[in-house]
């Protein structure tokens, strides 16, 4: 992994048009960007498109990157915005094709799960908790999905999440709380079966 000062040098060179320097940045971040996009839109092809778009945009905008935030924060912000845009566009298009027999929302999601880990039914029974949470996340609003992904999958601090999403700290905190509670209630109770400390299995105090 490159040291921070090296990254700064790369950014400087890339912003002056050094393709090799930019390539080094791509190598460093393409996996992270692709993963975030994939977790957000739940489609490999779309994630690929988004990742491309993110880096092309970043290259164009690099001279305006002023270094007042970290480069990773900046590029993930571009990625989140591109993904959310993509979801909005898709939603709009889906509303145009209402008479299609298969609801858009379900088909790619289902297929995605199948690709990775078999059918939906057994994913709930046999899959890891992480897979189950991901499945629930797909049904949440993008704004809830994105904040959980940034916090838990990417491991960003509240401050960094606030920078990426353009929110204030308080909003990040309360939104995370709400989003996590949604997931918790949507998860099948069996997923926590082994964790339960209470003999009666009561797990949802309010």
């Amino acid at each position: 992994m490159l040291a921070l000062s090296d990254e700064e040098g790369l950014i400087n060179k890339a912003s002056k048009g050094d393709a090799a320097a930019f390539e080094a940045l791509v190598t460093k971040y393409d996996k992270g960007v692709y993963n975030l996009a994939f977790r957000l839109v739940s489609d490999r092809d779309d994630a690929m498109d988004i990742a491309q778009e993110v880096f092309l945009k970043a290259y164009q905008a690099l001279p305006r990157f002023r270094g007042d935030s970290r480069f990773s924060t900046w590029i993930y912000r571009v990625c989140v915005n591109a993904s959310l845009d993509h979801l909005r566009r898709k939603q709009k298009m889906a509303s145009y094709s209402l008479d299609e027999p298969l609801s858009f929302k379900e088909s790619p999601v289902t297929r995605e799960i199948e690709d990775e880990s078999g059918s939906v039914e057994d994913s709930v029974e046999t899959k890891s908790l992480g897979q189950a949470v991901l499945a629930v996340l797909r049904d949440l609003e993008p704004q809830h999905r994105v904040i959980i992904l940034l916090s838990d999958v990417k491991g960003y601090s509240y401050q960094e999440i606030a920078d990426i999403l353009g929110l204030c700290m308080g909003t990040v905190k309360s939104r995370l709380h709400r989003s996590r509670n949604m997931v918790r209630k949507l998860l099948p109770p069996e997923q926590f079966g082994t964790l339960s400390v209470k003999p009666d299995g009561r797990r949802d105090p309010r």
Partner: protein
Amino acid sequence: MSCQVYEEMLSAYVDGELPPLDRQALEEHLATCDTCGQVLLELRSMKMALQSLPEVEPPAGLHATIMRNLKPRSQGLFAGLAGRLSGWTPRQWVPAVAAAMAFVLFLSVGGTYWYWSGRSSSGNLLSGMTKDQAAGQKTNLTTRGAQPGEPSSSAQFEGAATAPRAKSGGDAGSGGTAGSGVSGLAAGGAVLQDADRKIVRRAQVAAEVRRGGVKQAADEAIGIVKANFGYVESSSIVQSEQGQKEAASFYMVARVPEENLDKTIEGLAALGRTTRQDTSAQDITDQYVDLDARLRNKENEEQRLLQIMGQAKTVGELLQVEGELSRVRGDIESMKAQMQRYDKSVALSSLSLNITEEGATKRPPSSWHDVWQAFVNAWRALLLFVAKIAPTMIVLAAIAVAVALVLRKRRTA
């Protein structure tokens, strides 16, 4: 504190983002509350499960595709500007748009206010003028501002300068007045008393009568003028449509003997509600005296020419003198006519009267129409302002962009 409060802290606790004090309180609570402990357990396991998810490998072609599609940066000024604007997040452009809208709103409101205040101040100006004119009427000597077709202000100034001398009595035997040299003959002979001063008085009266009463009021007004030995020079009754209602108005110009003017005005003012009453007095004594002197000079010249004609020897001489004589007589005629006009305007004051129906002249002051009109005017003013300032702004913007570019180049260098 209830579980609800602690439960809300759990999420931040799992993330390690809880402030130390809260953390301590929460940990104490967790030691006693199994319910919250269960929630914590679930949240923590969720987080850990997501953390331990394997990363998905991006498709092999991603890296290559990106590098292949890398386009050289657009360098144009507008491309950069557009890129920057499109790069703005809502948090950046929402305030910008809000500021722009606030500015426009400010201009609208300001313009409306300005329009209204402008209206009220012009109203004050008008009433001030009326007061002035009333004062002029009282002293009878104030010279009025030049009206179209009247002698120039310099003539009025001479009039004002002569007035104190005339008042000082009959001791002034000196020849020249402020007028032309010829007038010395007349002025030296007769210094005018106050009573002899030639004053032209004019009056304007506007009155409102009840609806449908214009015709009757007009007849009465003409009657009043005649009773005061005056006559009507011109008059007109106009029926005009205002909105859905018909409105009638009456206008006349009358001449009234000067000594009856005040009485006539009183009579006319009693016709209805007086909305305007102006009187003015103009001192034409100097023009009058000057004209009188020149007239006498011409008459003397005529006499001399007649004597010369009697002594003429040849037909040529006779014809020459006769030509001169007819020119002088022409001058005398026109001067006498002017004299008569002066006399008439001094003897007969001009009085104009305007009678309108109630409610026809003024709208309700705060009608929506006015507000709308003010709004439209404000926008019109704003557009005009923008149009006028545009060239300047373009130049300034060009300079600003140039400076920004230079600064950026220096910083990146």
